[in-house]
Structure formats: C-alpha cells, structure tokens
C-alpha cells in the first residue's frame, strides 16, 4: 500500500496501551482494535520472567 492510499482510505487502527485513545476513535466510528498492554514496571529481566511465570 502506498502512502497516498493510506491517506485516502478509511483508517484501521490498532491501539496499544492507553484505552481512552481507542474509545475516542470508536466514538468517531473509526475501525479500531485495542491491545491491553502496559510497559513492565520491572527493569530486571529475571524478575520480569519470574513474574510472568508466577501470574504477576
């Protein structure tokens, strides 16, 4: 798809992170999928890995 096509076609949006962005787009009838994601609060990869395995 060319850039011009993107600007001239209906946008289809994948929203990652802050849900209110997706809500605003949906309110304007924009096709949007929200991905519930937040950056990990843990900097240590080992801790992050253990948390993922322990349901944190």
């Amino acid at each position: 798809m060319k850039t011009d096509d993107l600007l001239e076609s209906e946008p289809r949006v994948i929203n990652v992170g802050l849900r209110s962005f997706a809500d605003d787009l949906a309110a304007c009838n924009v096709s949007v999928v929200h991905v519930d994601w937040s950056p990990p609060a843990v900097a240590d990869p080992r801790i992050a890995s253990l948390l993922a395995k322990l349901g944190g």
Partner: protein
Amino acid sequence: MRRIDEANAEAHRRILAAEPVLADVRLARDALPRLGDRTILHAGPPITWERMCGPMRGAVAGAIVFEGWAKDLEAATALAASGAIAFEPNHHHDAVGPMTGMTTRGMAVLVVENRAFGNRAFCTVNEGLGNVMRFGGNDAEVIERLHWIATVAGPALGAAIRERGGIPLKALIARGLAMGDEMHMRNAACTSLLLRELAGDLADTCEHDLGRILRFVAGNDMFFLNVAMALAKAAVAPAHGIAHSTVVTTMARNGTDFGIRVSGTGDRWFTGPAQMARGLLFAGYSDADANQDIGDSCITETVGLGGFAMAAAPAVVGFLGAGRLADAIAHTRRMAEITLGPNPEWRLPTLDMDGVPVGIDIRKVLSTGVLPVINTAIANRLPGRGQIGAGVVHPPMACFEQALVAFAELNGVA
C-alpha cells in the same frame, strides 16, 4: 498459578476472619515464655549492636538499666557492646513494638487474643509522648515511668480488662475509622473509645493511682497505637506459613534495615536499607536531624490500616505532608492495586464505604511498581531527643524482589 491464587485467597480469608480481643496486660516474663534473661527484643528484622542506629542504642542502654543488668548507662552500653546481651526481633516472639520497640522480661505488655484462631500477640504499653524509650530516651524519668507502668498501671489495666472479659477490637476499629483514625499516626478516637470501655471497670478494680492512670491514658492520643499493633499482629499471624502464598505477613524496620516476611516463604526475612520518611518536621529541625525509618508499627499497614487507610484521616494528612484529602484518598485507592481485596468490616466514609485494602501481594507490588505506603513518625537520629516530625515512607523494592526469587526457588520455578 491457581495454587498461588488459592493460597492467597486463604490468607486473605484468615486476615478478615480475625476476632481480636484485648485480653490482658501482663509482664513479658509471664506472657512471652521464650523470652530469656539478658535478652532484648527490638523492632525490625535481626540486627547486631554494631549496626544499630543512635535511638536504638540509646534505648538498649536504657532497657539494660531498667532490668538492673548494669548500674548506669555507660556500663549498660559497654555490656551491650560486649556480646553479653542477646538481641532478637519482637516478631520472633509473636510481639511488636513501636519505634525502637524495646521489650524485656520486666516490661508490661498488652495481650491481644485472636479468638477466631486461638493465637496471641503482644506489644508494650505506650509510654506517652516526648522523652520516652521508644525514641531512645533512657534517663531516670524514662526508667521510673517504665517501672510504674510495669508495677502499677499495667496490672491495673490488666485487672480492668479481665473484669470485662476482654475488649473486642474489631468493631472499635470500625468506629475509629469512621471518626478519623487510621490507627498508625492517628489514634485519638480509638484511645477515647477504649478509655470509655475501661473507665468503669478501672474505677471498680484499681487499688492505686487511679487518677494518674486515667490521665496517663487520656493525655496520650497515641495510646491506642500499641493496641492496634498487637491487634494487627494477631490478625495477620494465622495468614503466615501458607504454602504457595505470596501475601506479605510482616513489615518492620530497625532504623537501619527494612524487612518483610512472606506467608509462603516461612520465617525468612527479605531486607533492604530503611528509607528516610518524607513529610513535615517540627520547627527548628531539618532532614539532617532525622533518623532512618524505624519501628514495628507498619504491621498496621499489613492489615489495611495506617497508610492504607489514609483516606479515613483528613486531620492527619496535612501533618504528614501528604497533601489534601484528595491525595490521601488517592493513596488508599493506589493500595488497592497491590492488595487482594477490601475488608468489608472496616469501611471508609470518604470512599463511599469501600473497605480498607488488605493482603499485600508481592507479585502485584513488582508488576505495578507501586510500593506499600506507610504513615510514620520521624525520630531524631540522636538518642532520647524524641519525635521531630511525621511523614510517609515506603519499603525498598529490593525486599520484594528478593522475596519473589526465594518464592520461585521454593516452588520450583526458574
């Protein structure tokens, strides 16, 4: 993961099911049978004399003179440094103590029974304000007051409490929360309610110093703190030692280290540096005068009181430097992110009667980055100089990281 969730649900259920009753006041030598001679219990995780802060060392010297193990403070300090005194955490004896947390055989302790599970917890009687041992005070005035509490006030309060058959505390806490207490830095309402409960029986049973005893309790807005601490210890203890549970069952500081213990990892301490509280200092003091965070009093936060119930205490938020009531409410709301659920019997009017948040989950602390908030007094770093302010403080994240690693190893997760 399901067994962790089930274990945590059981820990939460046990904390909420507690039925704490103020049952007695006894000498520690009778109430704490494992407390030996030449042994001093202190606040926080284990610590040696060499690493103790100024207020803790001052309190230790005073406790030694109180017990008659040395004739004066200089000899007491030498005795403490010699290795002849054993130092153990209050928590190793089902006890807690505010600030330096000194507990020795000759001191009077409050006895709180958790009648839902049959366990007991103990805390010394609050000495009052100003020049007191919990802030490192150790002069003749401090020693005399401790002897009076042990030989006159303590036995009188104990007789009155036994005459009543004990004072149920759960409903008293609920009333206090509705009256502006959070049971850590504000205890004015609960102190008043407790005195109302006891006054009649005290008048009937007291043989000496009734007026002094009544004024001793009535003149100290923080008298109930020690009751609340023993109550919290008694309530959370049955939740300790549940296999696979990630619930925090102990938070405590010794003025040098902050330590936590977790239900599913047994009696192992996870420690990091005690932090500096941030808040308001009394006129004439600066951060340079402040000691690091100290005391077992954050046991109250483990059961949803203190900083976790900050929304209950509009009168204290300004004193803590915590800002407006809206900020206090935000603190309590934030604690809901790191806890298992509310306590429906301890509700907060400023939160439309939502319950206080209970059951700190180390996984939630680490995944959100939100640390438990603790309301606390700020002690002068020099012994015996008393309180110099109040504020909020957090445990170091390192405690929770260590706990998670240990929990994972124990449960075979690499």
